């Protein structure tokens, strides 16, 4: 069964953008605690630009949309999150190239995205970065069907909570060493919104209305 179409993908981006806008301050506050206080600003700017880019463009395939998303994030976000999310969406696009996006393709794409993040950021599990969320989501999808979105979100949420107790060893929070404990990783939080947005799209039909 095809689970992502061009329209649905656009709607996904739309839903992400709404969340980044609504949570811009929350993400920034999280980043002020253990980073440099710009994560919400970066994400809001990035997905605003993504919408501006994709809204009026006709796309042939989901892969094409996601390539556009990747390019825009890479060119407009900057910081750590720009290359990481840029790479994630680029890897998804590459995994979907020439294919319709059924469950198998989707699962492979998420795994590829997680691997891309790992390659770009040189971070492994438990280093208190957004890789934690992407990797756990990819792990979940390897075991479970891609329709139990609630369960998937629970995984995200649990991982975010896990980052709270971690000592950061990558990214800006690593400068804090033990003092980074007790704070949720901002990038993990923004990743949560990406999957939450996806769930919303998945649960409300094909978005072709």
């Amino acid at each position, binding site marked *: 069964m095809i689970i992502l179409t061009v329209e649905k993908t656009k709607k996904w981006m739309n839903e992400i953008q709404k969340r980044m806008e609504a949570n811009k301050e929350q993400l920034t506050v999280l980043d002020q605690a253990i980073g440099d206080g710009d994560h919400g600003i970066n994400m809001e700017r990035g997905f605003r630009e993504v919408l501006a880019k994709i809204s009026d463009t006709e796309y042939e395939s989901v892969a094409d949309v996601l390539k556009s998303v990747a390019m825009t994030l890479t060119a407009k976000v900057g910081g750590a999150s720009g290359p990481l999310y840029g790479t994630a969406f680029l890897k998804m696009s590459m995994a979907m190239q020439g294919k319709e996006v059924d469950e198998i393709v989707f699962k492979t794409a998420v795994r590829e995205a997680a691997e891309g993040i790992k390659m770009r950021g040189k971070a492994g599990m438990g280093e208190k970065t957004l890789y934690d969320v992407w990797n756990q989501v990819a792990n979940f999808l390897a075991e479970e069907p891609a329709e139990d979105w609630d369960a998937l979100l629970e995984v995200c949420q649990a991982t975010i909570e896990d980052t709270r107790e971690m000592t950061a060893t990558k990214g800006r929070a*690593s*400068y804090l060493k033990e003092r980074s404990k007790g704070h949720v990783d901002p990038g993990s939080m923004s990743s949560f919104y990406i999957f939450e947005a996806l769930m919303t799209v998945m649960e409300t039909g094909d978005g072709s209305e």
Partner: protein
Amino acid sequence: MKKVVNDVNQIVDEMIEGITSVHSNLLKRLPNTTVITRSDVPVKGKVGLVSGGGSGHEPAHAGYVGKGMLDAAVVGEVFTSPTPDQVMEAIKAVDSGAGVLLIIKNYTGDVMNFEMAKEMAELEGIQVEQVIVNDDVAVEDSTFTTGRRGIAGTVFVHKIAGAMAEKGASLAEVKEVAEKTIANVRSMGVALTSCTVPAAGKPSFILEDNEMEIGIGIHGEPGIKRIPLQKADQIAKTLLDNILGDKHFGNHVAVMINGLGATPEMELYIASRKVVQELNEKGINIHRTWVGEYMTSLEMAGFSITLLDLDDQLTELLDKECEALSFCN
């Protein structure tokens, strides 16, 4: 938040316009980019030098663009690394065929964005090398973590690599001397107040009236510890002791006392006095001391101390004339 701005979303653009319209004889903006270059790039036969990073650290990095220092500065959003496409534009603009050296401060974002640009440029057949500055002794030096931050010591790397490139050295030679400079430079800072990222509108952190943060980063990242405000001499000594304890310094150094934004020059000189005294007592000769704002953190109050261990080559290159606005006089 009280700032002299128009629209927080246009800050970087308007700042670049301001810089390039005021200094149009020396600098230019590459059209439709956030890249500021020497007005005469590419300089024939010379290795191109590109640096940059988030904005909010002015005069870094546009103030170091000019003959004998950088060829281009790539400007990101406030405290946010510029994107690979912008770095790529800078690389293309400064390459005269002799290759390009990227001088990157060690932040995950900067490293990733500049590396992506390097990959892109190499695909287009441009020879690109990079060095990563990590002079901040407040952070542990570890290969398992992100490692040390690049802070004010970066300015010495710009100067020395710039002088080497201006002499006509090869890309490998310029990279080598840049790496030597990085190996020889150490810094550490202290904050008395926070800064406010314009788009955030609120201070990045809160320090109580009697507190200071030792080992602060230039983006307001926390440092080693938060302790009661001390006297100038004590603060200067703490920073200096950390620096001198981190590496063996020879008896010939260059010094930079760098204001983070809101600290008056008066206070920087009070701190400088102690630094000079301490180094004199230790028998370490000061080749020259720079006191001023070189690598700021918006309107943060505080300062950093940088020491560069000099040998003959570094001394000669540091002393070479240059024309960048904020270092050469």
